[in-house]
């Protein structure tokens, strides 16, 4: 987890990070942006974001990569693809939000105060363990990081269980270890 002051620690790297975004993640698409704000106006969770998508693209173009990578914006993106189908310049906005999340994860600067990186981490650990996603396992892993979220969910879990809507015993693939190995393989030179 990144510590306070981590923004300063890689400001020198910003140009390199901008290049990484442009070259390895199709980030150059944002050079087409006309700053119309259709994306920001279409986003269902824009009121939670520190920089709405239009502003985020502007920051990146001006080289403020530290701000962009530490922004909560990509983590509040719910992948509804509304911005993407509406963008008059056909910029794949949602895909670029994924790219920014991937970069934040790989540089270990994912928004420390946002819960979504922990949820996605819990999700991927559960898939590596079982090959499938089990709600109970997912919530247990997530709950370890965010115990305050859990009491309110216990009553709901019980009601879902009574209706046959919660599996306690986890479902697995035949050989989950192979899935884990596969997810951890890193063939060289794979394009993003």
């Amino acid at each position, binding site marked *: 987890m990144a510590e306070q002051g981590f923004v300063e620690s890689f400001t020198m790297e910003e140009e390199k990070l901008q290049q990484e975004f442009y070259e390895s993640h199709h980030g150059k698409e944002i050079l087409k942006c006309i700053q119309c704000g259709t994306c920001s106006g279409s986003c*269902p*969770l824009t009121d*939670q974001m520190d920089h709405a998508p239009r502003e985020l693209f502007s920051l990146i173009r001006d080289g403020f990569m530290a701000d962009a990578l530490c922004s909560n914006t990509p983590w*509040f993106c*719910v*992948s*509804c*693809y*509304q911005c*993407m*189908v509406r963008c008059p310049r056909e910029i*794949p906005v949602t895909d670029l939000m*994924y790219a920014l*999340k*991937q970069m934040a*994860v*790989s540089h270990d600067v994912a928004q420390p105060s946002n*819960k*979504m990186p*922990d*949820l*996605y*981490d819990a*999700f*991927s650990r559960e*898939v590596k363990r079982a*090959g*499938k*996603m*089990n*709600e109970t396992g997912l*919530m247990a892993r*997530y709950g370890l990081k*965010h115990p305050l*979220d859990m009491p309110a969910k216990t009553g*709901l879990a019980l*009601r*879902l269980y009574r*209706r*046959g*809507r*919660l*599996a306690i015993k986890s*479902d697995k*693939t*035949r*050989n989950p270890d*192979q*899935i884990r*190995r*596969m*997810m*951890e*393989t*890193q*063939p060289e*030179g*794979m*394009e*993003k």
Partner: protein
Amino acid sequence: MKYGFFPGCAYKTAAGYEESVNAVNSLLGIELVEIRDWNCCGATAAFSREENSALALAARIMALAEQQGFSEIVTVCNACYATLKKAEHKLSGNPQRLKKVNGFLKADGLTLNQPVPVRHYLDVLIEDIPLEVWIQGKKTVFPFHDRVAAYYGCQLTRPYGEPSQAERPDRLEKLLLALGVPVVKHSAQTLCCGASHIIGYEKQCLPLISRITGEMKNKGAEIITTLCPMCQFNLDYGQEKIQGKKLPVTYFTQVIGLAMGIAPESLGLDKLLVSLILKRRPQHAI
């Protein structure tokens, strides 16, 4: 008709989805054959962390489908649909990337020769089932009495669907109308329910849910019908936290089942959090 079926991780515990899909299948002669040893598609989580392993998860499902002789994959979940479709797009016409994904699959002794096309079960019902089969299957002749609001959610119609259907689709409404189900016209068909953000950000997701269910109530809906386990859960559960009248949130296969004359007991309707009380029970129910 026989299809390779990818149920996805949420299907088994989804409120009556499996029961109603099976009931509709047996009425229409559709056979969904589960892809053996399928894994999680990775949903939005895997692509939020690392692109290559996310692609490998989806590709493994395709490789299994191919190995088991299926030319198409049918799914019942919007998130699975969009994730697999994303892989289909990224791997189509890109032999270099396909080759690299196969590098991942080797760890599991699998090979993918070409991406396997992905479809949602709704598409199968609309495109593949001839009118005569629907007419033969229908066990009732009386009209459905409850007004239904169709809720597509986000990821079925965007970004890989027909551009004209991206925000104001009408395919499900047309199907329901043809089966005698009264539908309401409303503006929340493809608004976002908050998806998995509800786990950590419930308070922030409730306004999204309220916007959807409020609009449907304003337009006179009595039942909501969905196409995705995540959408169903968020609307079903979310309404508990929102003041006012609550609408039962069904799966489209439950409404179709009712309209076709299948007994409510066979459709898993007792699993809903907001109970469904029909104005009039279907007659001639089988």
